């Protein structure tokens, strides 16, 4: 480690290979422009180049690669959703995750942990049973288990949760996993870059040129680009981009906060989620407990952190794990979540020809990174929605055909 650092310090050239090029000027024209160099945008670029032969693509990023919600989530991967559309979609994603590291030749620290969603009330047990049956019907490995199974998987837990929220059962989802989120963005970025895609960081989109209901080009902070296709994959910035093309959407922005403890010896093997206590927690490869809770309660376009959040989440953690009272909080942060009324994403074609949305990813987007890349690249290349995303179109709202994932997407809603 010290020797490595010394090499960096003494070398006039960067001694390690770069993950991707830093292209110079923007070209005048691209076959497609992807707004947002997060996991979803880069995955779409990767599969467009690899599977659909489209290589003249620019990925534009106003900040730095993977610096938005890709680097701010709590990295949980699972497919135990509630609707058939959701289960089929996320299950395909979990399948894609399995060989991603080999695809990239990059260690993603993909770690299969098993995932417990704890039920503290009769109605929560009922929802877990419902989810388990939907999952099993669709071939996804989920099972309703009792408190003793939770205890044997995690002996440190206080099953009574401080006496006021006793655990009555849990939805156990064996494929539940975590992965290193930065590496996912880097892997997709490098793979796209090697196939000719240009990744332009520090390049902000300031306007989208639409003529006669068709996309013609994109105005950026570094000049104008002409392109017939624009994919918007910008999470919490989605309303600003849809505003540029005059599209109304149900998306609203709330911050979602998270925090980690100091690193400790490995003790928590599983991923634990509690809707009643508003917690999800896992232990990362470097020993930190990675913890998240529910959304901030009102609209805010900012990534500020609050003490209220740390106090609330820490109190609930101590209900489950009283022995953590001496653990210290290392970091906290926030991301801007693009929420939808039915807790399902908004994907695919839009009324503006050539403008594609990969949005409404709220608090549930990281696990879907590979399948979003697969389905959005298909949609952009063929100008036709991929069959797996047909339940997620923007038109479902004006048709009153919602895809209700509220019971499975998140905690505390």
């Amino acid at each position, binding site marked *: 480690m010290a020797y490595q650092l010394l090499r960096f310090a003494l070398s006039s050239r960067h001694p390690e290979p770069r993950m991707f090029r830093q292209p110079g000027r923007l070209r005048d024209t691209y076959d497609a422009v992807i707004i947002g160099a997060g996991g979803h945008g880069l995955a779409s670029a990767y599969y467009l180049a690899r599977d659909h032969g489209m290589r003249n693509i620019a990925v534009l990023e106003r900040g730095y690669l993977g610096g938005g919600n890709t680097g701010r989530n709590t990295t949980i991967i699972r497919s135990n959703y509630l609707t058939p559309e959701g289960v089929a979609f996320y299950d395909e994603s979990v399948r894609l995750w399995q060989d991603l590291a080999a695809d990239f030749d990059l260690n993603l620290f993909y770690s299969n942990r098993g995932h417990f969603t704890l039920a503290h009330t009769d109605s929560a047990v009922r929802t877990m049973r419902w989810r388990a049956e939907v999952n099993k019907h669709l071939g996804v490995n989920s099972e309703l288990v009792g408190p003793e199974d939770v205890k044997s998987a995690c002996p440190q837990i206080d099953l009574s949760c401080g006496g006021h929220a006793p655990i009555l059962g849990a939805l156990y989802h064996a494929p539940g996993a975590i992965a290193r989120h930065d590496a996912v963005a880097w892997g997709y970025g490098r793979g796209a870059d090697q196939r000719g895609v240009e990744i332009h960081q520090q390049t902000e989109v300031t306007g989208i040129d639409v003529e006669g209901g068709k996309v013609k080009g994109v105005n950026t902070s570094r000049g104008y680009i002409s392109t017939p296709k624009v994919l918007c994959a910008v999470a919490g910035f989605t309303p600003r981009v849809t505003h540029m093309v005059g599209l109304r959407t149900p998306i609203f922005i709330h911050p979602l906060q998270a925090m980690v403890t100091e690193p400790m010896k490995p003790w928590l093997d599983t991923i634990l989620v509690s809707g009643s206590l508003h917690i999800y927690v896992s232990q990362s490869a470097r020993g930190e407990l990675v913890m998240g809770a529910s959304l901030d309660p009102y609209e805010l*376009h900012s990534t500020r952190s609050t003490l209220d959040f740390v106090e609330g989440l820490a109190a609930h953690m101590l209900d489950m794990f009283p022995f953590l009272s001496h653990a210290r909080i290392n970091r906290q942060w926030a991301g801007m979540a693009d929420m939808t009324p039915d807790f399902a994403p908004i994907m695919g074609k839009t009324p503006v020809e050539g403008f594609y949305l990969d949005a409404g990813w709220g608090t549930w987007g990281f696990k879907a990174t590979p399948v979003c890349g697969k389905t959005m690249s298909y949609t952009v290349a063929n100008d036709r929605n991929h069959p797996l995303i047909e339940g997620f179109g923007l038109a479902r709202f004006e048709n009153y055909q919602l895809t209700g994932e509220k019971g499975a997407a998140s905690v505390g809603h």
Partner: protein
Amino acid sequence: MKLLNCPVNGSRPVSEFAYGGEVRAMPPADCTDPQWADYVFHRSGIPGVKVEWWYHIASGTWFYAERDVSLDRILRTWLPGESPEGEIR
């Protein structure tokens, strides 16, 4: 601790309040289905200064707050019917 000025009870911690969303005009009862869907689902998601409904839970008071939703800065609060510009529709 963030404070919010309730027009009835004065400055109180924000945890005593519930957020009621942006104030929006309801379309007439004889509107079309797409107009109604637009009202039910669609929102102005872009940042800016917005007038919102807020509710002081302890006293049951609904009121208006003008807030910058990028900076989380509350510019003013007032009770329905007390706005100098008249009622917001």
